[in-house]
Each structure stands twice: as structure tokens, then as C-alpha cells.
């Protein structure tokens, strides 16, 4: 019979093109991923329904760890220099300005700040440092830190004041930080948290369902 012969097609597909695309995407994601820097201070933040992303630059962050120790971190080097100069002139601490500028965070009483700066970077670990003393209300050193920080930013756009606290930190330390902010008229600040969805059925959830923006 003269049956039409169907040409047999191979089931093999050339994977090269797909492979190219896959690895292109892969390299894109690898390069764009910003890995979390190894944190010198271990902090587990509480969860909240806040949807606003925490600012990543122009910030002044107060870190409160699980033992109630307080650290100060900021990103603007020129401001750090101004603070170092202010500390040196007002309290005569003899700080190394260059080291101060390079230091990512500060966590020592004023008295031992110079020796803190003398430590190599990799030895500045949160659990070994004394932290900034705050609990003594008469001598809350964070108040001074905040005053100099505010002075350094004088006449410019205010930085975002952040507070990153650990779940297990006790309230008195938190209160001391709030007081330090208040005494310097910093009345707006933000608390760093991990995101969480609004529980189903609550008022916020209903608002979100309606598509309304809730300012928090």
C-alpha cells in the first residue's frame, strides 16, 4: 500500500539555549543578592505588621541587644568625624578620629572609648563589649551621643532614627533609649522589625482588603 510515511522526528531537544538562559539568570541573581553582613551584634527583632521598609542609608541606629546593652551605629562618615571632634573637644577623650570614622558602631562608655577604637575590627563583638551605659538616669551617655549626632546633622535633612531591639531586652533599657531621644527632641523614630501579615478578620486586615493605605 502506498501509505504516506511520516517523517520520524527526534525527541531530543537542544538544551544549550535553555542552559544559557538559566545560567544568565543565575549569575544575575548571584550578583544582585546583597548578603547580610556578618553581624557583630546578634539581635533578633520582634515581628510587626508594619509594611514600611526600614531605610538602608542615612540612618542613625541604636541597637539594643538581649542583655540590655546599647550600641550606636551610623553610616555617614563625615558626620562621624564631626561627632569625634565634638567628643574630643568637649570631653577631652583623645579619640583617634580616623579610627572613629572607620568604626561601624560604637559600644563603650566614654571613658573606655579610646581603647574600644584601638581594638581590631574583628574583635569588636557585641557580647564582649560593655555597651553605652544608659540605665543610670543621671548619667545616660546616650543622651550625649544623641546630642552630638543631632548637632552633626544640624541644618541638614534629619537622618532616620532607628531602634533595633532584641526580643528579650528588658523594658528599662528601652525606656532609657526613648528618654535619650526625648531629651534631644527627637520625637520621631522607627523600630526595626521583621514583617508579618495582619491577622485575618482584624480591622487592619479589613482596611488592607479594601486597598486603603494605613499610615503607620
Amino acid at each position, binding site marked *: 500500500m502506498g501509505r504516506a510515511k511520516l517523517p520520524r522526528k527526534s525527541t*531530543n531537544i537542544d*538544551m544549550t539555549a*535553555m*542552559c544559557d538562559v*538559566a*545560567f544568565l*539568570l*543565575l549569575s544575575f*541573581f*548571584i550578583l*544582585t*543578592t*546583597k548578603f*547580610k553582613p556578618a553581624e557583630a551584634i546578634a539581635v533578633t*527583632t*520582634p*515581628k*510587626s*505588621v*508594619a*509594611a*514600611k*521598609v*526600614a*531605610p538602608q542609608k542615612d540612618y542613625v541606629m541604636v541597637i*539594643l541587644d538581649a542583655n540590655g546593652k546599647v550600641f550606636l551605629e551610623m553610616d555617614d562618615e563625615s558626620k562621624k568625624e564631626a561627632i569625634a571632634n565634638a567628643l574630643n573637644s568637649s570631653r577631652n577623650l583623645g579619640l583617634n578620629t580616623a579610627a572613629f570614622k572607620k568604626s561601624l558602631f560604637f559600644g563603650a562608655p566614654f571613658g573606655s572609648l579610646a581603647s574600644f577604637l584601638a581594638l581590631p575590627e574583628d574583635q569588636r563583638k557585641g557580647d564582649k563589649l560593655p555597651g553605652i551605659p544608659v540605665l543610670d538616669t543621671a548619667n545616660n551617655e546616650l543622651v550625649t551621643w544623641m546630642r552630638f549626632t543631632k548637632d552633626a546633622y544640624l541644618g541638614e535633612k534629619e537622618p*532616620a532614627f*532607628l531602634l533595633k*531591639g532584641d*526580643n*528579650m*531586652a*528588658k*523594658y*528599662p533599657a*528601652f*525606656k532609657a533609649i*526613648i528618654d535619650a*531621644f*526625648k531629651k534631644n*527632641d*527627637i*520625637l*520621631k*523614630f*522607627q*523600630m*526595626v*522589625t*521583621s*514583617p508579618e501579615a*495582619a*491577622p485575618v478578620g*482584624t*480591622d*487592619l*486586615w479589613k*482596611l488592607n482588603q479594601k486597598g486603603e493605605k*494605613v499610615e*503607620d
Partner: protein
Amino acid sequence: MAEMDTSGGGGHKKGPGVKKGKKLSTRVDLTPMVDLGFLLITFFIFTTTMSQPTAMRLFLPKDADKPEDQNKAKESGVITLLLGKDNNVFYYEGQLEVNGSNFKSSNFKEIRSILIDKKRNTPEKDLVVIIKPSAECTYKNVVDVLDEMAINVLKKYALVDISEGEAALVKISDASGSAGAGASN
């Protein structure tokens, strides 16, 4: 899938005495490589979007120097939350009775329904939530309560220092353990 192309010379006849070299295909099966590639892509996609911390705003009021400058709240619309040790929450509505009879015990699971009830039964302009953390509570507790304000869309709330009497009451109730015990009822 991995195939070897042995068809080689396509039946092309060599002369006699010429040895046929077996020709191997240069094609490699790329499927596992693609699999691996996509697996890694998914991994990176998930890890990048996950760790984006959010920020919760808190506006502090300026301290009023004179008592007459302070905000007055209507007694019927006030609910005071006290935070104790071990995630205990205590609350009372209005003023605290001298004998502590309206001092009630609660926890973080129940406090939401209490707040929702209070919100339903109170005119919006009178409703004020006062949060008084004791020295024993943790930062997480405070954030959780502030979060509860956001969840239930309570606009008026205040973070206030605990008074000595209340602190003592919280301490006693904390010591007596679980919810319901202590000074309530």
C-alpha cells in the same frame, strides 16, 4: 537521553585496509545542568526577597511640664494595659479601684478581643489606650502591644510610666502565676 552517535561516517566506504575510527558525538545532555541552574535560581530568588526588615514608626509626645497641659482623657473611654513578667498582660478600664477589683489578668492571645470589644463599645473620640510596661517586661512585649494598636487601628494610645501601686499589683499577680489569679475579681 545521552546518546552516542555511532552512525559516524554515514556508511561512507573507506578503501580496504583502512581502519574505521569510531567517531564519538560531541553532544552532551544538558538537562541535569539546566535542572541545577533553575534550582539555584529559585534558591536565590527566595533568599533575596526574604530578609527585608521593616520599620514601625513611633511618635513620641513632647513632655508636658505643667499638669494642666497634659491631655485629659474621658474616664469611660480609657483602657489601661499593664505588661508584666513572662508575657503577662493585665488591664483595667477607667480608673483603678482602690481595692483592685477591676484589675484583670489577660495574655497576648486574649488582649486582642478585649481591645476589639472596647473599641466597639466606646465612641471613637473617647477611646484611649494607655500602655504601662513594668520593669520586668521585654522589648518584644512592648512592640507586640504597639503592633496590636496597629492591627486594631486604634489611633489614640500612650506609653506611660507605671505607678508604684500598679507596679506592686503587677508584681503580686506575676508571682501568683497564671491568668485569672491575683488581684482580679
